């Protein structure tokens, strides 16, 4: 049995909220694709949980402060933490912003044992962030057990001692420590297994990591394949992957020279995208992918900055490019006062994969070769390369992809997010209609309009006598509408038929965002149908049934 690498993990709780600069005493939640990814302790006390929908979270806690997920800002804010830990080790691996790990073998001997080292690490991070940010440190065999030790540690009563922030699992006892932990942790952030695997395990009655580790390994592989093997090894306190016997050949390292030197992060990130793409393609050509990666940069004055990034799964091309961008933003945009900022433009970038593993899962299905069909993986990769170029031309906000949200208006039910915030080469459940449940009450019935005007175009709606049509409090119109006119009454069109109104009274509990609107469907004499909306007595065309 392979000995797992003794690892120390530093974990900052609720990092996305901390990075947004919001006090943890306020109820706040960070959302991605309409789901809560992190929330403050104050919000948790009100019943807000991860994976909740926005409206569920808001109904539990109406004063909830909603923040958008911004991984780049989180990485930027984390950079001073990583820089402070470099005093302990040169080999720091960042799993995701908010969590980093390093092997303890050398540093532990130097600092006098795991407990002393953990205390020092916690003290350094606390010194950087101040005492308000909850920091936990875990030491155990392997990064998976160490991360869980950090996450599950409840701090002792004497909070002022840095040692109390750490939980050290003695060597060889990681399997026993992991045994009572539910299997759902396997599907958590940065976790090795998908929700599908965890779901099946739970339904089979395998509810704890101990129960999973007790299963015969051959049976687990037979039923769940390599993903199951990976999970089984982690549950037993071993390293997730069999140790790599030979270091990857040096020629995997890709270097890009920047000439002229890149002064702005965007320029360097653009080059990094091509580099990431190249690396990913080369690895994919040999059927492998990268799980640990060194990203380095050098300035014209010879300053260098290197970080190791690690994931329990494998990095996609987009994920590699994101890591480079986060790291450069953290370094160049340095927030930490004493963290050394580069003094000149960036002249060199390099990517060196440290751990190469067989690429799993993304094999071509045999059935996709039918006539007229498009190979989905090739098409996705091709599209993401083109998108990278268009983003370079128009900026991150210029290219957007749809995601389903709750709402009543035709423009509210699907929102747009920058493509940089979504990995288009991976399945995106938020882009499927099943992401939201049943349509909201008060929604105008299907079919939906093909053109939605943002912002709505102001019009006037008048009755046969030329008076403006109003919608009364009880949800009925004051008179049958006879004509629609543009704001200046120029292009007046007769109303041929109409229906409604569909009133909707939204967020009546919050005086600041409360909206009362009513919608009306109208066809004009030329046969075109419009969706009109009235708010505070003003009509506008919200959508055209084009």
């Amino acid at each position, binding site marked *: 049995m392979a000995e797992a690498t003794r690892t120390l993990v530093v974990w900052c709780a609720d990092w996305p909220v901390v990075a947004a600069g919001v006090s943890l005493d306020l109820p706040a939640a960070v959302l991605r694709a309409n789901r809560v990814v992190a929330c403050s302790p104050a919000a948790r006390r009100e019943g807000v949980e991860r994976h909740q929908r926005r409206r569920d979270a808001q109904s539990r806690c109406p004063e909830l402060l909603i923040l958008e997920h911004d991984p780049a800002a989180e990485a930027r804010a984390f950079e001073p933490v990583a820089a402070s830990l470099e005093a302990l080790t040169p080999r720091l691996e960042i799993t995701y912003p908010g969590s980093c790990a390093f092997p303890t073998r050398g540093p532990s001997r130097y600092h006098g044992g795991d407990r002393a080292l953990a205390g020092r690490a916690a003290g350094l991070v606390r010194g950087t962030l101040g005492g308000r940010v909850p920091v936990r440190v875990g030491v155990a065999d392997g990064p998976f057990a160490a991360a869980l030790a950090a996450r599950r540690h409840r701090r002792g009563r004497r909070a002022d001692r840095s040692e109390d922030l750490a939980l050290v699992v003695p060597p060889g006892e990681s399997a026993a420590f992991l045994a009572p932990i539910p299997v759902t942790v396997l599907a958590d952030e940065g976790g090795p297994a998908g929700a599908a695997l965890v779901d099946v395990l739970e339904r089979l009655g395998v509810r704890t990591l101990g129960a999973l580790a007790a299963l015969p390994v051959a049976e687990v592989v037979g039923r769940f394949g390599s993903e199951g093997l990976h999970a089984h090894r982690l549950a037993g306190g071993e390293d997730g992957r069999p140790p790599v016997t030979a270091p990857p050949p040096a020629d995997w390292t890709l270097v890009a020279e920047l000439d002229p030197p890149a002064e702005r992060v965007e320029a360097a990130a653009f080059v990094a995208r091509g580099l990431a793409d190249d690396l990913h393609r080369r690895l994919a050509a040999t059927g492998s992918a990268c799980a640990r990666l060194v990203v380095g940069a050098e300035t014209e004055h010879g300053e260098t900055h290197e970080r190791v990034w690690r994931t329990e799964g494998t990095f996609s091309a987009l994920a590699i490019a994101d890591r480079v961008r986060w790291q450069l933003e953290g370094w160049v945009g340095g927030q930490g006062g004493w963290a050394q900022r580069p003094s000149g433009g960036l002249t060199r970038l390099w990517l060196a994969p440290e751990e190469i593993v067989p690429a799993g899962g993304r094999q071509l299905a045999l059935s*996709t070769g039918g*006539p*007229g*069909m*498009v*190979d*989905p993986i090739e*098409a*996705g990769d*091709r*599209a*993401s*390369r*083109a*998108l990278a*170029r*268009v983003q370079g*031309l*128009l900026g991150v906000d*210029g*290219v*957007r*992809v*749809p995601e*389903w949200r709750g709402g009543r208006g*035709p*423009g509210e*039910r*699907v929102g747009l997010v920058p*493509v940089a915030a979504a990995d*288009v080469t991976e399945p*995106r459940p938020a*882009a*499927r*209609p099943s992401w939201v449940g049943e349509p909201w009450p008060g929604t105008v*019935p*299907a*079919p*939906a*309009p*093909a*053109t*939605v*005007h*943002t912002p709505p175009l102001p019009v006037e709606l008048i009755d046969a006598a030329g008076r403006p049509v109003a919608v009364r409090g009880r949800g009925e*119109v004051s008179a*049958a509408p006879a004509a629609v006119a543009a704001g200046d009454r120029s292009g007046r069109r007769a109303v041929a*038929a*109409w*229906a*409604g109104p569909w009133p909707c009274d939204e967020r009546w509990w919050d005086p600041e965002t409360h909206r009362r609107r009513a919608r009306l*469907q109208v*066809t004009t004499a*030329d*046969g*075109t*149908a419009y969706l009109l909306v009235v708010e505070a007595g003003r009509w506008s065309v919200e959508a*055209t*049934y*084009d």
Partner: protein
Amino acid sequence: MARGADVFARDPLIGGRPAVPPAAPRVGLADLASEQRLPVLPGLASLLPGGGLRRGVTVAVGAAPGVAGATSLALALAAGPSQAGAWVAAVGLGSLGLVAADALGVVLERLVLVADPGRDRAGWASVLGALVDGFDVILVSTSTSAGSAGPVRLRPADARRLVARVRERSGILVSVGGDLPGERSPVSLTVSAARWEGLGAGWGHLQGRRVTVETGGRGDAARSRRADLWLPDANGHVTPAEPLATPIPLDSRRRRHG
């Protein structure tokens, strides 16, 4: 020969099966032609030569003056390729109704929007050029009404280069609202008539739109075709509409009864 057969018979992979290697599937011209076409929704197949969208082609989708429906028709046209796995980019269509796009059959997971490719013409040309390399279907707005970014900002020379690039990269370019500047598309689809059903004087709701789509073009699309469609029907989908009234020839009725 006999020895060869013996070897095949003893081969554990082949076992007792006849020792004749399987014939390679025949590839006919029709197959090659269909390889070059992306499927469209069943309701639209009768409108297009070969029943699909030929790769490398530019399609103009528009509506007769005073008639709406070009955006829905363009979305319906992109839906077939989208369901077959193609990626769709919409350029200059900032007001696209995405709920309608989903209902018409466009897979939102593979839809990307570039609402405003910039104020200058060079921006449009380079953005469209980059997208052609990566996307199988590109919808681009050419009319003022369809998108907030205004009409397509392309010089005729850029448009010509774009059309050539689409042909070379085997993509499909759909210009929504009429032809690209200076170009005449080889296939054009026009909504010539449209009527909404389901709305009364203060009652009901919009339930479906009956449209007549006519085609024109050059080459194998030169023969004009027309079809009646529900665009959309009560569920937001596209379905063929039965002709309003089917005249029954007098003599056929007489024959049946006699």
